[in-house]
């Protein structure tokens, strides 16, 4: 039974509650968050997966942390400097304690690396960030990490590994899921995790950084976008991620709800097959006979880019939740080049370019893409098919489930070569390492050296390759950044890829909460703060 408001005491307490809410809406410092997905494990070294990493960040720290734009900031290391061509020295933060009271020291880092590289049954291991590095303890608060060749991204790699107490180096994944071993140095301590239901965190009173406002945090997985919005409106949760586009206008109008949007680093792009060999069945003359890929010619590639009405896609297909793109990085994000702007819509010039390249009457093309992998992917493909048809490239679309698409995209052709002529795919730089997209997609394919594994269209420019390799070999990060931007400029102007847009990520919160957000579309609970 609820107390009747006519009952004097009930009335008074109702008044008191009302009063408390009107003065300070955040009296109760418990935060409830609804996320679209849940971690596969609370073991921070089990699987290199966005949601796992974002949860791990709450309980554990890495030597180096990343801000909302993946810029490196001090974490358990206060500074890092190269001491020679192959060695980085990390100065560790003094006075830090794990949640179980143990003091943090260089030994813990070494123990962590041993465990993180060797977690049994890991679906995607953190070993890639650790293998090939030697860790040397100089003293309790000084650590040296060396590599065989000059490698400027050791600090980036170190930002991926959550540091645990050396006492738990042999702990199992299960121990981290139940809380038996879950002692980090992060802003929250682990309380309990019931997969599929709830994750509970409590404030770490001894946190070395800025203390959190929340006494406790409850994280609930709610997969369906509309259900998340409904939970926020009903007051069941205080903060949600990934607002369903259809709910957005409704939530924006509603009082008591704040929406946060930011241009994410998730890029949607087209890749155009640009070598003579092999001749693929997806581009033909009007007679239906396969022809050598017209996209060898930069003018045809440019025509494709100019034919795409990026703003129309943003407005009509994405409901405003995308920003036209001209390169891998959105503005403000690592690797962004101020020299590049997204191509405007110019079908007339596109037709002229086609004619100049000898395709006055156009040709027939099938474009491929995944269905349901990216926001509105099939609709975007359909819009692009319309736009290309308009400049004379008679385009049809074939979509397929993402698992099928990516297999064929990478090795569906003869001799396990990439199958498609034109395909749409997406990319987001998860590691925050600035040369990553260039090394994966732009550099000439050289499998043995780890270059160009994602280069599926045969783009190759010796000058770009050299810039990427030189940048990656210089221990001076500023030199590297300059080289990467130069490489980006050349590659994008040659349409190594045709960028379409960056998705816009959304979050919503009840009033009184603010969220610090950047180019990452994943959610970091420590950035959910009480409004002052």
């Amino acid at each position: 039974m609820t107390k009747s408001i006519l009952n004097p005491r009930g009335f008074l307490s109702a008044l008191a509650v009302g009063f408390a809410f009107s003065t300070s809406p955040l009296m109760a410092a418990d935060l409830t968050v609804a996320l679209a997905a849940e971690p596969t494990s609370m073991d921070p070294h089990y699987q290199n997966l966005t949601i796992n990493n974002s949860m791990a960040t709450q309980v554990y720290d890495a030597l180096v942390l990343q801000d909302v734009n993946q810029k490196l900031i001090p974490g358990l290391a206060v500074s890092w400097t190269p001491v020679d061509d192959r060695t980085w020295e990390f100065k560790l933060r003094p006075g830090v304690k794990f949640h179980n009271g143990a003091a943090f020291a260089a030994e813990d880092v070494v123990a962590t690396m041993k465990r993180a590289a060797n977690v049994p049954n890991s679906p995607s291991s953190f070993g890639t960030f650790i293998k090939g590095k030697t860790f040397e303890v100089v003293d309790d608060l000084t650590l040296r990490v060396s590599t065989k060749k000059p490698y400027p991204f050791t600090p980036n790699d170190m930002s991926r590994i959550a540091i645990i107490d050396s006492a738990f180096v042999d702990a199992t994944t299960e121990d981290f899921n139940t809380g038996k071993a879950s002692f980090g140095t992060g802003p929250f301590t682990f309380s309990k995790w019931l997969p599929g239901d709830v994750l509970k965190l409590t404030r770490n009173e001894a946190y070395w950084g800025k203390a959190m406002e929340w006494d406790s945090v409850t994280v609930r997985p709610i997969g369906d976008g509309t259900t998340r919005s409904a939970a926020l409106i009903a007051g069941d949760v205080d903060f949600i991620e990934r607002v369903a586009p259809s709910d957005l206008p409704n939530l924006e109008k509603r009082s008591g709800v704040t929406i946060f949007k930011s241009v994410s680093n998730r890029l949607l792009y087209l890749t155009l097959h640009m070598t003579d060999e092999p001749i693929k069945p997806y581009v033909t003359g009007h007679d239906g006979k396969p022809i050598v890929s017209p996209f060898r010619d930069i003018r045809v590639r440019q025509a494709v880019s100019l034919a795409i009405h990026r703003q129309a896609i943003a407005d009509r297909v994405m409901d405003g939740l995308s920003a036209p793109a001209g390169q891998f990085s959105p503005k403000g994000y690592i690797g962004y080049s101020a020299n590049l702007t997204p191509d405007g819509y110019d079908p007339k010039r596109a037709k002229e370019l086609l004619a100049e390249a000898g395709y006055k009457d156009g040709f027939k093309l099938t474009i491929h893409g995944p269905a349901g992998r990216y926001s509105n992917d099939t609709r975007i493909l359909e819009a692009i098919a319309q736009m290309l048809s308009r400049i004379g490239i008679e385009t049809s679309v074939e979509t397929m489930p993402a698992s099928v698409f990516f297999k064929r995209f990478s090795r569906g052709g003869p001799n396990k070569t990439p199958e498609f002529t034109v395909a749409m795919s997406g990319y987001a730089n998860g590691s925050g390492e600035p040369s990553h997209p260039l090394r994966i997609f732009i550099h000439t394919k050289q499998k043995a050296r780890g270059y160009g594994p994602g280069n599926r269209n045969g783009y190759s420019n010796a000058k770009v390759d050299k810039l990427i390799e030189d940048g990656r070999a210089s221990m001076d990060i500023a030199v590297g950044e300059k080289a990467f931007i130069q490489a980006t400029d050349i590659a994008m102007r040659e349409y190594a890829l045709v960028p379409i847009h960056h998705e816009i990520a959304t979050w919503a919160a009840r009033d009184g909460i603010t969220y610090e957000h950047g180019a990452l579309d994943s959610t970091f609970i420590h950035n959910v703060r009480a409004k002052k």
Partner: protein
Amino acid sequence: MIALSAIRTRPTSYVSGLLIAIIAIAAVFAPLIAPTDPYALATVSILDGRLAPGGEMLDGTIAWLGTDGAGRDVLSAILYGLRTSLTVAISSAAIALTIGLIVGLTAAFYGGRLDTILMRVVDIQLSFPAILVALVLLALLGKGIDKVIIALAIVQWALYARTVRAAAMVERRKEYFEAVTCLELSNTRIIWRHLLPNSVSSLIVLATLQTAHSISIEATLSFLGVGVPITEPSLGSLIANGFDYILSGAYWITFFPGAMLLATVAAINIFGDQLREIINPRLAK
């Protein structure tokens, strides 16, 4: 001829028959009737997307039933989509009917071990839900109208085979059949000239009802995204296209194709029921 006069005396069959005729004409002459060509990507523009019914498109055409998310005129898309849906349904029914007829008659005529084997195959086929089999087949075959037709034919033949066999078994025990057997006519002649014409009446009804059923299956498959190509939507894919926009108020993308699908399936079903009563007067009350 008795059947034709019976149709005239039954108003329900008359109305449903007329409706089917109108739908069929609309589908056949879609390119002439439709205000725009919804499959011509060079003229469809997303800038026309999600116009409300009665809205004016960029080229001045009025979209009487609105436009969908890709900027297709919904009215034109329905007419063209109807073509796809009917083509798929009728061709798959025809193929399935032919296979079913051959298997069913063979099983009934020769009997014995062949009958047992064929009917077990039919049993196994019928024990799988149609939509599941179709989904698996399309996952293997890929997209395209021809593939949907093949998948639906494979899903449906067993039903025809079972029905034909039952009817043919009954005929086999009749006296005229003993007579033709005694005349030592060739097997082929007995099957095609005597068994087939006498067993086919129940099949006509089944074929009608199955056509309606395969329109629904095709719509379901397209709704699930494994049917026809997205740039050439059938009724099912039009409904699926609009489904995401229902909550934001753009009801017309789903509603009108849905109404058309309902009308088509209902008309064929009612007509099939009436046909059954006419052909088999014992069922009439």
